[in-house]
C-alpha cells in the first residue's frame, strides 16, 4: 500500500532540547563526527488505493494543520513512497 511520508522538524531558531541531549551523548559513545543534532518527527500515512493529487493535497494540509505546530515546527517534506 502506498504511504505518504511527512517530515516535521523544530524550526532552526527554536531550542531543540531533544537534539541537545543527543549531541551531548554521542561523543561519550565515541561518535565524534557530528556537531549538531536536531530531532523531529516522521509520520507515515497509509493510503488505501492510489495517491491522487487531491490526497496529496490533503496530506499537505494535514501536515500544516495537525501534524506540525507552526509556532515552533516546520514541515520539511511531504512525499509519496511506494512499498
Amino acid at each position: 500500500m502506498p504511504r505518504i511520508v511527512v517530515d516535521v522538524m523544530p524550526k532552526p531558531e527554536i531550542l531543540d532540547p531533544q537534539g541537545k541531549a543527543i549531541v551531548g551523548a554521542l561523543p561519550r559513545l565515541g561518535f565524534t563526527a557530528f556537531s549538531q543534532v536536531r530531532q523531529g518527527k516522521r509520520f507515515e500515512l497509509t493510503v488505501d488505493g492510489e495517491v491522487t493529487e487531491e490526497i496529496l493535497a490533503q496530506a499537505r494540509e494535514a501536515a500544516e494543520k495537525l501534524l506540525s505546530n507552526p509556532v515552533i515546527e516546520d514541515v520539511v517534506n511531504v512525499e509519496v513512497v511506494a512499498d
Partner: protein
Amino acid sequence: MDTVANAAVTPDTELPWAELGLKQNEFDEVVKVLGRRPTAAELAMYSVMWSEHCSYKSSKNHLRQFGDKVSEEMKKDMLVGIGENAGVTNLGDGWAVTFKIESHNSPTMIEPYQGAATGIGGIVRDIISMGARPVAVMDPLRFGAIDHPDTARVIHGAVAGIGGYGNSLGLPNIGGEMVFDSVYQGNPLVNALAVGVMRHEDIRLANASGKGNKVVLFGARTGGDGIGGASILSSESFDDTKPSKRPAVQVGDPFAEKVLIECCLELFKGSLVEGIQDLGAAGISCATSELASNGDGGMEVELTSVLLRDPTLTPGEILMSESQERMMAVVSPENIEAFEATMDKWAVEYSWLGEVTDTGRLIIKWDGEVIVDVDPRTVAHDGPLYDRPYARPEWQDALQADTFKSSEAGANLPSTGAELKAALVELMASPNMCDKSWITNQYDRYVGGNTALASPDDAGVIRVDEKTGMGVALATDANGRYTFLDPYHGAQLALAEAYRNVATSGAVPMAVSDCLNFGSPEDSDVMWQLAEAIRGLSDACLVLGVPVTGGNVSLYNQTGSTPIHPTPVVAMLGKFDDVDRRTPSGWRADADGQALYLLGT
C-alpha cells in the same frame, strides 16, 4: 557597530524606539539620562527594562501600600521583603521559606504547552536565585468557556506543559485553581507559584559587589527566544501586521533546569557565589543592570563572550533574548576554580563575561568597543513612573444593581424537593464545580516524599524538616466576578479565602504573594479596579497581620478594548510545627462515627 562613540557623533540617527514599545516621552527621557542618543544596544536595554512588565511603571505607586501598611507584628518573621526576586519568611529552627507567584498569560495564549511550561520554569528560577531549594509548585488557571473550541486548544496544552515541566523538575504540584469563564476567552490566565526552603545562611541576594569579582553566565546558550517579548507582551496590543513585533516563543528544557537547580544548590553549599540572578524577561539586560544596580559599584562585561545558540544574533538581540534556563552569578576570584569544577560535574556550560568595578557604571563591550555605558540604576530602578488617571466606572452602579435576586430566576427560587434536587445537581455539574482530578492526575504530587496534603484538599502541605515534621501550607485563591463587582472587597475576599484554606488545614497563616491580573492601565476603569484591589488587599493584610512578601502584576489582559475581569490571585503561606497535625478537607475512610459541625455565620 553602533558604539557609544558613534552615538555621540551621530545624534540624528533614526531609532526604532516606537517599534520597541517606548513612548515619545520615554525615549526623550532616555536621551536626557544619557546626555546623547542611545546606541542600538542601549535602546534595546531601556525598552525592555522600561516596559510595563519589567518596570511596574503603572502599578508601582499603588504597590507601595504593601510596604507601607505593615505593623511590627508583620515584620517579625520577614527576612527579605518585597523587591527581591522573592520574599523570604523565617520558619524558625534556622529554616526559611521563599515563595512567589507569577503570570505567563500571553505566552500561553500563543503557544499553550511551551508558554505554560516556561511559566513554571521561570518562577522556579526565581526561587533558586534566592538560595533556596524549590520544593513544590502550584498553578492557578483561568480559561474561556468550557465549550468554546479554542479553550480545548489552550487548556490541554497548558495543563500538559505545566505537568511536563514541573514533573520533570521533581517538584510536586500541590494545588491550584481551574476556572472557566468566557471573559478569559481571548486571554487565559496561567499563573504559576513556586515555593522553596533554605537555611538562613543560604539566603542569596541579586547584587554585584566587590571590585574585581567575576561575572559569569551559565546554563543554556543564548538564542533568539522571545526577543522583544518582554516589551511587546506588556505594551498595548499584538499587531499581527507587523511580524517583527510578534514575540518569538520560548521553548523550555526542563532537564536543563533540573540540572541547574542541583548545580546552584551545590554552589550555595560551597558558598561559591557572592550574588546571583535568574534570567527571565529581558534576559541579560535585566540581569546585568539589576545586579549592578543592587550592588555598590559598577560592572563591565564583554558581550562577545556570551555563548550563543544562534551565531547571527546582534548585540541588542543578545541583550534582549529570553532564552530559558540561564543564570548569572558573581564569583570572587578565589572561587573560580571551584565554580568551574561544579559546572563540569553537572556538564553545565558557562562563560565568564566580565567583572564588578567601582565606577558606578554598567559598561558593555562588543569586541572591546563600548556599546553600552549607563548608570545601571536608570535602567533597572529609576524607570518611568506613571500616576495613571483612574475613576470609578460609570457602569459600576448599574452592574451592582443587576443582582440575581432581582432577576426572574431569583424571584422563582426552587422550593419543592424535586426543584431543589435539580438545582443542586445543576450546580454540581457546572464546569467550575466539577471534579478537577483530570488535571491534577497529570501532575506528580508525590515526588520528594514530603507532600502531606495536595489535591483535592483546600491547601497543599509540604514537610520542610524531616526531623521535626515542621512544614508549610499553601493555598491560592481569586474570584474575578466578585472583584469585578467590587474590586476593593473582591480582592479582600480572595485573601480571606486563601487565609481560611491555609488555616483550616491546621497551619498558621504567615505571608502573602499575589499575582494581579488586570486589563490595560491606560483605561481609567481598569486602573480604578487595580487601585482598589491593591488598596483592599493591603488593608486586609494589615487587619489579618500577614505581610505581602512578593508578587507580580500582569496588565493589558484584554481582547481588543474588552478587559478580563480584574483577577487578583492571592497565595497564602502558613506554617506547621508538625505537618502530622494537618487536617484534610474531606473525611477519611476511618472517620466513621465522628461528628460534623458547621461553624461561622
